[in-house]
């Protein structure tokens, strides 16, 4: 008789060895860690808006993981495309910003200086602008405020 073991309490993690079925086209996974992703989040949102919205609308139809594989591949390819473009054009600025995020608990407000150079580079080279949806009209967006109240201890 088999006993049920909670996979969470297993001593070694279970890895399903079976690959994706052959009829599903392969896509290179992004492999970017949280820091660079957080740094690039608003540019991914701007650059891949159509693909992302298409994917989320598809997920809204059906939560089945098999239902939106095609849209999902498009999302990943688009992000991959943007990441490689960022690496080609703004690598130094990007590295600086996500390095700062890693050292500051992933808080944007502590890393405004490297963020501004990155935003400037992204706008000049790729024409992408960071916008925060839902920010109050007629006010400076929070990432462009000159003298914010919340700053790091060391400026």
């Amino acid at each position, binding site marked *: 008789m088999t006993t049920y073991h909670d996979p969470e309490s297993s001593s070694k993690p279970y890895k399903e060895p079976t690959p994706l*079925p052959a009829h*599903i086209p392969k896509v290179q996974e992004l492999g970017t860690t949280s820091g660079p992703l*957080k740094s690039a989040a608003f540019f991914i*949102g701007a650059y891949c808006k159509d693909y992302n919205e298409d994917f989320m609308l598809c997920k809204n139809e059906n939560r089945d993981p098999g239902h939106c594989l095609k849209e999902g591949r498009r999302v990943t390819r688009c992000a991959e495309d943007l990441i490689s473009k960022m690496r080609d054009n703004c690598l130094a600025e990007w590295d600086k910003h996500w390095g700062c995020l890693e050292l500051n608990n992933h808080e944007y407000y502590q890393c405004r200086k490297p963020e501004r150079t990155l935003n400037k580079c992204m706008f000049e080279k790729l024409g992408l602008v960071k916008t925060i949806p839902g920010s109050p009209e007629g006010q400076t967006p929070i990432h462009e405020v000159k003298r914010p109240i*919340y700053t790091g201890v060391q400026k």
Partner: protein
Amino acid sequence: MAVSQHPYRQDMPPSGGFEAIKYKRNLPVRGPSGVMILTAVTAVCAYGFYRVGAGNLEKRELQREKVWSRIHLVPLLLAEGDRDAYRRQQAALAREKEIMKGVEGWEVGKSVYHNQRYRPADSIVVL
């Protein structure tokens, strides 16, 4: 006899007269007045509350920024997770098919509910 030895002298006020009698209260100035202190404290508090209010508004915008950075990443992470979930699901179905191949009328992956809605598997794998 003794009295006559000293010449007579009338007792008089000192030359220039007596000094004025100190009947006025002597209260040296002891710092700013109460009204001034109250005004200053009120001003400091007002400025402090203004900064707190502005800080609260700023905090709200920082929170909005954080939330939107995560929202922008949701499709990306979900797509990656979906591919993995689909791979595991297909493997589980193949496993089930292999195990239950001798059973008549067994439908692989059939839901126990009469509902088309997707439900994630209750258990991932039995170790």
